[in-house]
């Protein structure tokens, strides 16, 4: 997503990225980043909390006008109910992908290598 944001911005469209993986987005470098310190999957607020979502989306839009320089991060002022998810994500106890998704991921990865090798990608 960060790569797409950079491309749009390079071609004259101001962008704001909403995301939960602060280190990955900042490592890439995007013009404006509204960081939501929530589990991967909820970058615009808590599910079914329209008031929070409204506030976070509005903060991100405001950033389009207020960011003083490229690489501006604003953190949404909210906490998840509990933060054990931070320790438990990407562990044996909580595998990121289930078995079926992992199998599909590996198949697609190999298929992409094949089309690339065949010169069609």
């Amino acid at each position, binding site marked *: 997503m960060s790569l797409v944001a950079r491309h749009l911005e390079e071609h004259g469209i*101001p*962008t*704001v990225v909403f995301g*939960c993986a602060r280190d990955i987005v900042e490592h890439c470098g995007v013009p404006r980043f509204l960081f939501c310190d929530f*589990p991967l999957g909820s970058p615009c607020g808590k599910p079914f909390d*329209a008031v929070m979502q409204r506030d976070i989306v509005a903060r991100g839009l405001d950033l389009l006008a207020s960011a003083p320089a490229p690489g501006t991060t604003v953190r949404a002022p909210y906490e998840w109910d509990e933060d054990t998810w931070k320790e438990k994500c990407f562990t044996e106890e909580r595998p990121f992908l*289930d078995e079926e*998704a992992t199998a*599909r991921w590996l198949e697609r990865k190999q298929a992409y290598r094949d089309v*690339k090798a065949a010169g069609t990608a």
Partner: protein
Amino acid sequence: MSHVRYIDKTREYYRAQGYTTPYRWAHFDDIPFTPLARPLAECRVGLVTTSEMAIRDTPPPVPDDDPLRDPYWLPSDTPVGRLYSRKTAYDRFATTLDDVDAYLPLTRLHELVAEGRIGSLAPRFAMAFSQYSQRKTLTVDAPRILSWLREDRVDVAVLTAV
């Protein structure tokens, strides 16, 4: 508690599974910047997401076995209740993708248009897959999305990383 260091955490996670070559996350020294040209209340907003949206009771826009997984778009006036995410890469233990607006804020953006905070929402929103190939994202996917946003005369873009 401080934010999760996903780069370090995933490196350890996949190393433990036997993957010896760590993924090299994209990194650039320079960051582009385009200042906002007009007030938000006059801007048309484009929406781009990695949340792999689909419409209920219709075939998936991109088949699961498609290795290229090119970007695609759906109409922004699709009722949110008819939309769902096909994404499997998210923290399924801690959260849910059952509320579309928590990662693709269509309803929230429609509300902000109605209130005059933003000018309008582009007639379609775009999906980009999280690709294995950064080269493909940069040379195929991003230019295609840019062309859609230009056709829709978008002034600013909101991107949600799921």
